């Protein structure tokens, strides 16, 4: 295998961009780039977490946006109740996501295939309705987060640049974690289950237990993205976990390349830049985006990473 490939070069370029562009934005005073990049990095984190179960674990969750909402609402609700410390908000956000993942996973993993897709979707929709019913926390209209999480001077989330680099650090941390998980014994078992559950079970691995743990880890990671997202928009609403958001995350993963480490990041970057670009051309950007998705599914197998890999082989 060659040490230098096209996909590696493009990935390195993208990562360098993510690290360096905020400096450019700072120098040129172009705040818009920084805002856009922060959104991209947070959703890339969510997409990467989805990729852990979808790409490596073969569990097609169509309800991942629920964790964004749960993480976000944990921050929003605690802030509303006067608990502004990030040292409380973030652990609560992660714990709430983990518990939700444990319950939903234990139920959903009783099924497989299309059932699994539909059930994760339905449960996420349930979370959406529950949030809409929370009259104390704004119900349908959502909840404004008046004060960002307070890390007692350690890092100031109100500072755009500091907040961006916190998000980026979280993204890199999560990707590192996923890399370690995927290459661990646990990760190998989960990937084995994706390929052939029956054989793995016959060898003696408790299939569902491994998958459930993986499901919970992924959900917890996505809860982190939710907590960051609430801080980014200063607002949480049921729309955060509307099912089209879950669809967007799935598209990012597939667009970038399922089961690759940096594919979801690539997917998030391309998807959100495309959305931004198209929405500047026309108000009806989804009119182009929709058929584009159809074409990508029909002709672009393996996502961007797959295409780059093929280009690299010539």
């Amino acid at each position, binding site marked *: 295998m060659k040490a230098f490939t096209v996909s590696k070069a493009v990935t390195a370029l993208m990562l360098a961009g993510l690290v360096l562009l905020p400096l450019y934005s700072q120098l040129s005073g172009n705040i818009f780039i920084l805002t856009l990049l922060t959104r991209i990095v947070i959703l890339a984190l969510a997409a990467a977490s989805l990729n852990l179960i979808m790409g490596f674990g073969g569990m*097609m969750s169509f309800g991942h946006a629920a964790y964004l909402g749960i993480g976000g609402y944990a921050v929003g609700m605690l802030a509303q109740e006067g608990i502004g410390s990030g040292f409380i908000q973030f652990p609560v956000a992660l714990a709430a996501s983990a518990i939700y993942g444990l319950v939903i996973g234990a*139920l959903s993993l*009783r099924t497989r295939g299309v059932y699994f897709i*539909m059930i994760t979707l339905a449960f996420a929709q349930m979370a959406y*309705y529950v949030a809409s019913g929370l009259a104390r926390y704004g119900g349908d209209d959502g909840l404004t987060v008046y004060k960002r999480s307070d890390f007692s001077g350690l890092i100031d989330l109100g500072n755009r640049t500091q907040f961006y680099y916190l998000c980026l650090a979280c993204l890199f941390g999560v990707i590192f974690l996923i890399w370690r998980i995927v290459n661990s014994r646990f990760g190998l078992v989960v990937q084995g289950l994706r390929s052939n559950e029956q054989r793995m079970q016959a060898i003696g691995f408790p299939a569902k237990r491994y998958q459930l743990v993986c499901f919970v880890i992924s959900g917890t990671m996505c809860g982190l993205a939710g907590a960051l997202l609430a801080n980014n928009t200063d607002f949480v609403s049921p729309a955060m976990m509307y099912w089209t958001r879950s669809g967007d995350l799935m*598209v990012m993963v597939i667009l970038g390349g399922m089961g690759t480490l940096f594919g979801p990041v690539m997917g998030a970057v391309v998807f959100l830049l495309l959305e931004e670009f198209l929405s500047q051309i026309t108000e009806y950007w989804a009119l182009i985006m929709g058929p584009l998705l159809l074409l990508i*599914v*029909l002709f672009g197998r393996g996502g961007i990473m797959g295409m780059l890999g093929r280009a690299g082989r010539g």
Partner: protein
Amino acid sequence: MLLVVEQFLNGLQFGLLLFLLAAGLTLVFGIMDFVNLAHGSLYMMGAYFAATFAAWTGSFLLGALLALGATLVLGIVLEMSALRHLYGRDHLDHVLATFGLILFFNEAVRLIWGPAGLALPLPAWLTVPVPILPGIHYPAYRLAIIAVALLVALLLYLGVMRTRIGMLIRAGASNREMIGALGINIKLLYTLVFGLGAALAGLAGLMQAPILTVQIGMGENILILAFVIIVIGGIGSIRGAFLAAIFVGMIDTLGRAFLPNLLRQVLSGAAASTAAPALSSMLIYLLMAIVLVVRPEGLFPANRR
């Protein structure tokens, strides 16, 4: 008493409507092994077509008939132009491609009809209350929905169980390759089934249109309910879809109507009025969770292979 009967009928009517939607979805899945998220878009298109055609022709019935034809054609065009190339692919590909279609349809509707919703007014003869029991009146239109949906369900049953095409459909559901080997034109059969599913979704949409406003995204929430029904009933089973749809329609309607009062007797007033809306919208999902725990394959799995 009055309220109970009324809500019971509302539940039945909603359940039957859900059945029309779920039947198309489960047929398409059972036979083509195709997951169609855009089914809700066809439901929405049915409503928009009906509102438009009814305004053009000035007749509700004529508008409804034209809309039914239009969704049938739309379904067939969709199948022939794009979706047939996805059969045999991974389910994930289906989900993504049809997710793209939803984006497209929502935006196309916004472009053509504008972001504001439409209204589909009923003709005078459908708005009169009909006495069903001594002292109890029920809107004629809702009764009409129940009648039409029951008739369609019966026709669907007879069509699938008693006709030659129905036989082919059942054969296709149990073994796709085999009926192809026996010289049946599967492509045509698939297109036909997809068109039928589209028309059923359109019918549900246009019948629901006068009750709710016709708006963008109206098909999405109800599509998820249809998924819940399919999961409860067992994928590919029309009988399961029918029973589960009525069940879900009843529970959802009755839950929303009576749960707040029930809760008020257990909890304090304030706590009850906070918990009730959230809990009543959770009810059917809880039901689904219970079914999954007891029977992961659904209550009436279609074909055990």
